[in-house]
């Protein structure tokens, strides 16, 4: 909370605030001291909040017209597209909104990886963020099943069958998930129920995410601890709100570009064919945001092994704050890690690309190399580079390098000083 105790001006405000200090919370959020050097990579938190609210609002509207039944779902989606007033717009915002949500969350995660935002004392923020990310994937997957097209049906079949790899109880678990002996109407029903629930769980976690953020305060591009409030900080409002608003407008232009000009480019045309349990489409691919994990799954020639590695690729992120041994947060001052960071970015992009290609020939080789590097980055590069790397001098404060024209060694602290 802010340094000074907030006292509402009006008598009514004071009366209410004494009973429920919402106005104090509002004052805290407004005055919240924020590092003055935050760049545009820090605007994605606000953008993600916008994405979540957009998905919830459009989703609630779609649920007013959608029918969660295997015989009716496909037709009801077409009904939304053709008959419901502005139904096409609302559905295209919702379906493209999922992609924009993931685009923003990936930028948000990679920003954290570059500037070391996951490190002490922000591990809990990072872990809550990963829980949000996991729920986002679950929500997106179940949402993709709802139109009950071919990709919906077979995507659901493949993903739920991942659980059949579990020894002994695997088959019982998949039958339990389905509520039938294959993906069928009971599966669609429960997916709809959970798809409606998960965004509100995410909303709750977002509150915790921001709460946990407001305890240590924002990390910043130079990654040093700062005094709050001080000449290194600005109040959240209006300085950060206006910057976030500008970034959000640019983001919305791109979003609108997809919605109005290429609303189907991120989807798959097979999903406009009604689900048919007798015919599998020739080429099954998940949505683009899951492709790197799909590539990891297919790179392993063993069923259980593939499933373990795929889930491992996500769960390894939870222990990242303890795998990274470097005391310096920002990659700006880590010349070696910085290079590995960009190799890792390329590796994930490559895995995404091969995930969309058939699992054979050169693609299989690339998927295997990419998978090995993905894990090596966390298990080998992160701990070893952190120990061996000679980091650049880090500045004393945000203001000083700016005022003196650069991070001069005289003004800079060495790593072994308190960071």
């Amino acid at each position, binding site marked *: 909370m802010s340094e000074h105790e907030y006292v509402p001006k009006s008598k009514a405000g004071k009366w209410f605030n004494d009973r429920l200090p919402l106005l104090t919370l509002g004052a805290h959020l407004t005055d919240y001291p924020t590092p003055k050097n935050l760049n545009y990579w820090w605007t994605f938190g606000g953008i993600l909040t916008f994405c979540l609210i957009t998905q919830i609002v459009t989703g609630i509207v779609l649920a007013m017209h959608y029918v969660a039944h295997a015989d009716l779902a496909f037709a009801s989606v077409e009904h939304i597209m053709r008959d419901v007033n502005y139904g096409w717009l609302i559905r295209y915002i919702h379906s493209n909104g999922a992609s924009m949500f993931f685009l923003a969350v990936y930028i948000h995660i990679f920003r954290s990886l570059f500037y070391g935002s996951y490190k002490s004392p922000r591990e809990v923020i990072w872990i809550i963020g990963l829980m949000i990310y996991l729920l986002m994937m679950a929500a997106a997957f179940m949402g993709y099943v709802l139109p009950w097209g071919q990709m919906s049906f077979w995507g659901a079949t*493949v993903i739920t069958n991942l659980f059949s790899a579990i020894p002994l109880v695997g088959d019982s678990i998949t039958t339990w998930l389905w509520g039938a002996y294959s993906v069928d109407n009971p599966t669609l029903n429960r997916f709809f129920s959970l798809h409606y629930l998960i965004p509100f769980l995410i909303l709750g976690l977002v509150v915790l995410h921001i709460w946990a953020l407001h305890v240590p305060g924002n990390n910043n591009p130079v990654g040093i601890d700062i005094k709050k409030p001080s000449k290194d900080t600005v109040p959240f409002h209006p300085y950060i709100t206006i910057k976030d608003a500008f970034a959000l407008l640019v983001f919305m232009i791109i979003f609108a570009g997809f919605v109005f000009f290429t609303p189907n480019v991120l989807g798959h045309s097979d999903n406009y064919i009604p689900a048919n349990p007798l015919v*599998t489409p020739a080429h099954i691919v998940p949505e683009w945001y899951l492709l790197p994990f799909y590539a990891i799954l297919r790179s392993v020639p063993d069923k259980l092994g593939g499933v373990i590695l795929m889930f491992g690729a996500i769960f390894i992120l939870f222990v990242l704050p303890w795998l990274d041994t470097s005391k310096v947060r920002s990659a700006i001052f880590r010349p070696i890690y910085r290079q590995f960071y960009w190799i890792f970015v390329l590796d994930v992009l490559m895995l995404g690309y091969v995930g969309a290609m058939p699992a054979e020939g050169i693609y299989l080789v690339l998927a295997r190399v990419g998978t090995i590097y993905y894990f090596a980055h966390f298990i080998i590069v992160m701990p070893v580079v952190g120990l061996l790397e000679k980091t650049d001098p880090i500045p004393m404060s945000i203001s000083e390098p700016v005022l003196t024209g650069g991070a001069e060694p005289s003004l800079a602290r060495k790593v072994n000083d308190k960071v």
Partner: protein
Amino acid sequence: MSKEEKKVNRRDFLFTASYTIGAVGVGAVIWPMIDQMNPDKAQQALATTEVDISSIEPGKSITVLWRGKPIFIKKRTSEEIAEARAVKLDDLPDPQKDEDRVKDGKDEWLVMLGVCTHLGCVPLKDKGDFNGWFCPCHGSHYDVSGRIRKGPAPTNMEIPKFEFVDSNTIKIG
């Protein structure tokens, strides 16, 4: 301190009893919440299907739906049966004799779940390197007996419980 620890009094008994009864109560409520997701009676009622197989020509197959899953029913030619039986068991990732996958005396009829044992896609017939089925999802090859030969699938395609009602009809399930 140690004296107090050893002494079991009425309150300890009440705590333990309360927790135990509480745990039983919570379990009794949770189980219905979990079990409601298992296949319901309507799903279980679809457990058997009768199929007329009189019109299938040798070498041809049909696909029928049973419990929401495709069943392949193939009438194999004598060459295909011979091919399936010539395979050495050592060459199979999931060793199983062709004889064990068909009914005695009805060797031409292969009845199996048309579901890839990898991640549940429907394999395509007359495709792949082994003259049998090929799964387009992740590239598993099955032979003319539906046994896995190459690719990520761990086991042979499953043989469901079925019986011949008469020479022209089979009952699956």
